[in-house]
């Protein structure tokens, strides 16, 4: 007899409906798997350790689905010598979506509990393939990063492109790498197994009745053993993870420095060391993970008095708070120091360089004290120190970053945010500022009394103190400002620059000057300045002259090309990319705003249009021309870095799509499972009742 087609009219369970016990087991397994998956998100999935003699405890990086922890900075620092990109740049999309993915997969699993087995299988499959998918993706990124090394890197000749193994042992340079799965991946694998078991149970649950009667306890055993297996796996991996993180042996750092030879390397193990650490010998002091120098609220952190000393990887914190004692995190009083990859927090002054020519300050993170901005100390302070490299530092919530009386300083790729002066230069000649990000300070960069400065590809954003200059220039000579993005400040560039010598010319080209209150503000005495190929976009006032007057002796075009003006209402009949009539920055409106800045409120309003119209119709109060660009460009010509776009629209699209899919599946599943069926011979309850009633 074909059980599946037998009809019963006595209300007994038919073959078409699934067995209860295996169904319940399957549901439970799915639920547990979903839970495991969610918990795994908060555990590291993969770990790699790098071992080398100079790192006795090794360097570790752990990959969570959403990010990396461990000695990422140190590893990045090492990697940059061989030209590998910073680890943070890997798998950005995956990391961004990982919470969504986990959420969606778990939701799908939960939904799978209530839908027919076919749907359930489909919904649950992603979880099954997730762990191998993760490993594949990881391999892809390791391969990509390892194979695409920057050939201009310092040690590029020593290390050829390679692929670090995803699991197991490898070798890079003098480093031995050991990689393996971690708790999170074990959990995901366990979830995967549970899901497989669950799927099997769902299908078994639809099998023959005799088999199913026997299958119930069998299914139960299968489920239970699957759970047990996963539990064991989890317990094992978690316990395997809790490693020897015990207290480091007590290390007398002061003694080590005293006893060291000139030029020696001292590695400070994890632990908290008393400040001040005085480097009066030329030693390299390197921190292991967890090495902290704590000044406990008094005096300086580290004081360097010997030339050629180095400080790597420490956390330095809690200096004293006396401005007149100038309590400093790292005080460098001798030349050729290297201060690298340290974290300086809750320090009054961060890093101070006095008579410290030839020093390198790189990759440090400096966070100031939680005090009123005027009461804090400077994040980085260079005084009378030439030939400095200050690069890749993050400076936040300090007072100023100050470079005075120091020549041939390269300031590159620093982030300076939420402070007073992002950069203050005074009497600093032959300096270069590139790739810095100055954001949210009172003034971006203020450059005074210096010769030969190049500022290129900096992002200067939202500096809005009372002066609020993105870049301020006072009595500078030989200035080249190009390809910067100067956006959202009170004043984009402020010129107070009478030419110091007849021959000296200052150039401002290819900058993006956008969304500032005033794009460019000049003192009327400014001359010999060339401003061309910039994009003036939607500044409330594109050009201003402080206090009225006319500019003379400046050029706004070079080789027949001027600037792009977002308010240029011209045309280009000959199609050469240059407007056919000059762009005059004047207008009654600008004159009025010059006199009464509060009028900016009415920008873009009908009132403004009316005023402009009235001016042309009734020239009683004649507007004063400010500048005239004879060759205004029809398209933006700047080549500056674009300030990062914080939000990613793709993320939202995918999330929306995923949610819709789940809802759709659930609805469809619900309708087919629980709705009235038309299966032949299967009476519905109501029919039965009716039938009962009709009897």
């Amino acid at each position, binding site marked *: 007899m074909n059980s599946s087609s037998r009809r019963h009219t006595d209300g007994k369970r038919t073959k078409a409906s699934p067995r209860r016990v295996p169904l319940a087991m399957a549901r439970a397994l799915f639920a547990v798997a979903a839970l495991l998956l969610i918990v795994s998100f908060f555990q590291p999935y993969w770990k790699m350790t790098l071992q080398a003699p100079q790192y006795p405890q090794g360097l570790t990086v752990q990959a969570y689905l959403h990010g990396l922890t461990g000695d990422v900075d140190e590893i990045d620092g090492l990697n940059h010598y061989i030209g590998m990109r910073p680890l943070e740049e890997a798998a950005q999309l995956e990391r961004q979506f990982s919470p969504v993915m986990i959420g969606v997969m778990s939701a799908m699993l939960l939904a799978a509990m209530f839908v027919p087995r076919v749907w359930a299988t489909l919904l649950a499959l992603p979880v099954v393939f997730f762990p191998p998918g993760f490993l594949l993706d990881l391999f892809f990124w390791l391969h990509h990063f390892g194979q695409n090394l920057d050939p201009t890197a310092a040690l590029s000749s020593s290390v050829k492109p390679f692929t670090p193994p995803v699991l197991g042992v490898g070798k890079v340079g003098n480093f031995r790498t050991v990689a393996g799965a971690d708790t999170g991946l074990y959990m995901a694998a366990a979830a995967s197994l549970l899901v497989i078991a669950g799927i099997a149970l769902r299908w078994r649950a639809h099998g023959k009745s005799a088999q199913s009667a026997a299958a119930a306890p069998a299914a139960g055993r299968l489920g239970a053993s699957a759970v047990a297996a996963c539990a064991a796996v989890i317990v094992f991996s978690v316990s395997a993870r809790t490693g020897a993180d015990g207290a480091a042996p007590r290390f007398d750092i002061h003694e080590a420095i005293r006893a060291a030879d000139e030029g020696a390397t001292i590695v400070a193990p994890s632990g908290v060391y008393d400040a001040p650490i005085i480097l009066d010998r030329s030693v390299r002091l390197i921190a292991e993970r967890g090495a902290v120098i704590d000044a406990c609220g008094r005096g300086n952190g580290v004081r360097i008095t010997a030339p050629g000393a180095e400080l790597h990887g420490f956390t330095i914190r809690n200096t004293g*708070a*006396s*401005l*007149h004692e*100038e309590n400093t995190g790292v005080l460098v009083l001798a030349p050729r120091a290297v201060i690298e990859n340290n974290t300086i927090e809750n320090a009054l*002054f961060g890093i101070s360089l*006095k008579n410290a020519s030839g020093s390198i300050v790189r990759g440090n993170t400096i966070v100031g004290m939680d005090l*009123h*901005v*005027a*009461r804090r*100390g*400077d994040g980085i302070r260079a*005084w*009378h120190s030439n030939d400095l490299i200050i690069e890749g530092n993050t400076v936040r919530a300090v007072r100023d970053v100050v470079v*005075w*009386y120091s020549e041939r300083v390269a300031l590159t790729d620093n982030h300076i945010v939420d402070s*007073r*002066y992002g950069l*203050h230069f*005074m*009497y600093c000649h032959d300096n270069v500022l590139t790739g810095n990000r100055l954001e949210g300070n*009172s*003034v971006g960069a*203020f450059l*005074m009394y210096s010769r030969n400065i190049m500022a290129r590809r900096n992002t200067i954003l939202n500096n809005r*103190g*009372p*002066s609020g200059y993105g870049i*301020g220039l*006072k009595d500078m000579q030989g200035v080249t400002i190009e390809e910067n993005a100067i956006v959202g400040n009170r004043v984009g560039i402020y010129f*107070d620059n*009478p030419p110091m010598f007849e021959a000296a010319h200052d150039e401002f080209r290819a900058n993006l000057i956008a969304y500032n209150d005033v794009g460019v503000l000049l*003192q*009327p*005495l400014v001359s010999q300045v060339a401003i061309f190929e910039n994009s003036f976009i939607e500044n409330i006032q594109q050009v201003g002259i*402080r*206090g009225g*007057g006319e500019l003379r002796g400046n050029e706004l075009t070079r080789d027949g090309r001027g600037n792009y003006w977002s308010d240029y209402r011209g045309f280009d009949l000959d199609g050469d990319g240059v407007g056919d009539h000059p762009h005059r920055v004047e207008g009654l409106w600008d*004159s009025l705003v010059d*006199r009464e800045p*509060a009028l900016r409120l009415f920008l873009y309003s009908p009132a403004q249009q009316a005023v402009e119209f009235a001016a042309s119709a009734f020239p*009683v*109060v*004649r507007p004063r021309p400010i500048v005239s660009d004879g060759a205004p460009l029809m398209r933006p010509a700047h080549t500056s870095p674009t300030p990062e776009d914080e939000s990613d629209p793709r993320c939202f699209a995918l999330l929306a799509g995923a949610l819709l899919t789940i809802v759709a599946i659930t609805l469809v599943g619900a309708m087919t499972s629980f709705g009235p069926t038309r299966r032949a011979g299967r009476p519905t309850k109501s029919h039965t009742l009716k039938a009962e009633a009709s009897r």
Partner: protein
Amino acid sequence: MRTLLIIGTTFALAGAWLSGCGGADETRRTANAAALGSSAARIVEARNLTPENVEAALKTYMPSGQHDEFVMFASSGHAGQIIVIGIPSMRILRTIAVYTPESWQGWGFGMGNDVIAAGAVDGKTMTWGDTHHPAISRRNAEYDGEWLFIADKAHARMAVIDLRTFQTKQIVKNPIALSDHGGAFVTPDTEYIIQGGQYGHPLGWEYAPIEQYEEMYRGHVTFWKFDRERGRIDIDKSFALELPPYWQDLVQVGWGPSDGWLFMNSINTELHTGGVLEGEPPFETGVSQSDMDFMHIIPWRKAVETFEAGKFDRIKGFPVISLDTIRSEELLYFAPEPKSPHGVDLAPGGEFIVVAGKLDPHVTIYSIEKLKQAINERNYTIDENYGIPILDFDSVVEAQVEVGLGPLHTQFDDKGYAYTSLFLDSAVARWTLGGPYADKNPDQPWSLVTTTPVHYNIGHLATVAGDTAKPEGRYLVALNKWSVDRFTPVGPLLPQNLQLLDISQPGTDMPVLYDMPMGIGEPHYAQIIRADKLKPWRVYPEIGWEALKGAVSPNATTRGQERIERDGDTVHVYTTVVRSTFRPDRVIVREGDRVVWHLTSIERTMDAIHGFTIPGFNIMTSIEPGEYQRLEFIADKAGVYPFYCTEFCSALHLEMMGYFIIEPAS
């Protein structure tokens, strides 16, 4: 209905009558305004003026015969004199010769030679000075308009100017110092005139090698006792304090809650000594090294007591209270102040003191209450160089306000506003004081209200009585250092630009009214006083008045008393001067005679001024109505010397002359 009509008409008529009744004046003013309309509009158009230009012109124009409401006394920097300027017209009324001889006033060419000579350095007469900070004498911390004091930065001297005659009466040379900057400042009742030092050097400028800077070089603050009766500095009652060589800068003497306290800032606590050829950083670099310098706080009445108790040493004969005594008597405290500051300015109520660090966009405001408390509670550490207590910064600061770049100097008005000059921004910042000043204006306390650009590079600024207990507001003068393109070019040496601002309105309305080129000196600092507080003489009180003695001279001559008297080798010539004659008009002496010429102007009319010069003897003197003057010289070479009146006095001015003949010896 009829009632209504009657009542209505009555009211209408009454109304019309009442409104017609601002009467004649109203109508005239309305007519004026209407007339203003057409021709003024034509001028506005022809000259391309804006409404603001027109308003500014109306606020500053002074019709002929009308006087300015205020008078500004400005220093002239290295021109060595005082410049008197009318506010708001910004017209130069006159200069007052002080350290530098000035021939129009006859200063240093016949009159005042002794005064200038009294300021000699090591026996050498100095014929110029560097005037920086004038101070009008005070009562109860307000200007009284009687005396004016000004120091000479170049040679460390102090001058007393009589504001009845606008003449310098005394110059004293500081015996222990060659450098000062904080001078002059006065105590609230002008008991003392203060002169603060600047560049450290051994006191008495004795020799000591630069390597011994820390041990041997010192700063100072000198207290000059002012005798108001005599109108002169009493050197015998004056004294100085020996200070660490921290390059003291400006001074402020307290009143009210800060009465008895003197404040001074300093800029070289780094103790930098230069040495560029020796590989050291230059001064500008070295002096800017530290984040903080020290505000000096001195209980000056206690210092006076210490002096009067005889606890001093003498350097070159001048009483100096030594650093040791200062430490033991607790006469000096330090409070950290940001980065080489230039001003220390007391709020009108005397309860807050404002310091602006040149390179710090914030101004720092200290509370006098908190300073006193920190001193009483001994809340300080000790300066390791000189053992002076340094008060804890956090416990004495009241507020810090971000005003802009390069703040230098602050003055105040009567509405609770403070005005700070911003050198780097080339602007004036208006910000609000807090505490008891919060209700005086609609703006938030302790915050920046507005900035007005000035051209260019402003140094000090002055508001009306802005550094006294009762400022009046109304006007602010920005003393800008560079004029660049503001005026018609006049060669490589360009004038300064003094700009007048209208600060009478609260809020953000603070326009520039007028640009005034200053091509006769470089005003550093100025004080503005209400004109009616000045009581200058129109003529001298009596005929024969000797200005420097303040009394009628026994050698004065009246009409009919003119004579020439010989006394051995000395010849006395008694001359009356009146339009348009010198009597005697023939003066004959022998070669080698010592000639003493007594000139008396017997004029009584205002502005009837004569001048007197003898060619070849470098003599030029200006004689005001009633004045007596005495000239002395040797008639060393026989010849004929026509003398004449130099100041145009009358229709026959050209004819106002005489012959001075020196007969040969044989």
